[in-house]
């Protein structure tokens, strides 16, 4: 069974935001809530200017295809990774934090697709995790309707969705 259309950014982002909230509450013992552009901008401005950020991207294919991206400050990623596996953040190395960021994006994407398209079949690619320069963070929020700001433990997380046109023949 195919979806009649690929998710429009607003539809998908709202549901993605809910998926982030569920992941945060269930596995990270964290509070997460979507915030508007103004609050997102304020949270971003409050971050240290040279702070390292991580972006984890999960590509998916199926009745429609796209990419879900989760971008978060490095220190927040470390804190959440520590909460996830029950250890102090400074006990984790960079590779473990990156692994966590990838798994976070994987859970967000998977939960979103399961809840919104349970009757359809998707394949999720392995997460790709990399650093994002602070100078590029503000640009993420400028993408036309494709990025949602979420506050997690008083820190900003950006969730992006790029959805391609439905696959031909789907």
């Amino acid at each position, binding site marked *: 069974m195919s979806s009649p259309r690929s998710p429009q950014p607003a539809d998908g982002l709202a549901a993605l935001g809910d998926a982030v909230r*569920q*992941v945060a509450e*269930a*596995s990270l013992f964290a509070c997460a809530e979507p915030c508007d552009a103004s609050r997102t901008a304020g949270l971003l401005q409050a971050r240290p200017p040279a702070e390292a950020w991580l972006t984890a991207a999960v590509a998916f294919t199926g009745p429609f295809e796209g990419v879900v991206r989760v971008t978060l400050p490095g220190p927040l990623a470390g804190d959440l*990774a520590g909460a*996830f*596996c*029950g250890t102090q953040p400074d006990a984790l190395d960079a590779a*473990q934090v990156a*692994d*966590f960021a*990838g*798994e976070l994006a*994987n*859970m967000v*994407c*998977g*939960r979103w*697709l*399961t809840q919104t*398209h*349970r*009757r*359809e*079949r*998707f*394949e*999720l690619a*392995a997460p790709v995790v990399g650093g994002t320069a602070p100078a590029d963070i503000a640009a993420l929020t400028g993408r036309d309707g494709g990025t949602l700001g979420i506050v997690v433990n008083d820190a900003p997380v950006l969730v992006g969705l790029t959805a391609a046109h439905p696959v031909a023949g789907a």
Partner: protein
Amino acid sequence: MTGEPIAGPGQAGPNILIVDDSAIMRTMIKRVAALAGTPLGTIFEAANGREALAILEQHPVQFVFTDLAMPVMTGTELLREMQARDQWRGIVRVVITTDGSDSRRHEVDGLSVSVYVEKPFRPEEMRDVLTSLTTAR
């Protein structure tokens, strides 16, 4: 591949094999299992289905907790291999995956999966799964 005894000397408990390509997810599941309050034996880890099969061939395992989407050998392929071997007939199989779609659930029909857990899960969910599985043995 790693094996870590959880039970102390004289304690009896099932050996568990955790299969997931994310090392931190395996750590999380291992921690939750250890905190579940049920006696456990050795917890083994594998990053994919092929590593899992190697462990199963060398060590007695009573529970397998497996992800589905993994490189090299998927969880579904692992479950099919296990289903084909009589010596593994008694191993309890638990799927832990982000994919809760109907079609994925149907994919593992007939592969003796006892419980299908969707990620993210709360620690108490895993506790309840372990409690119910160990009680049923």
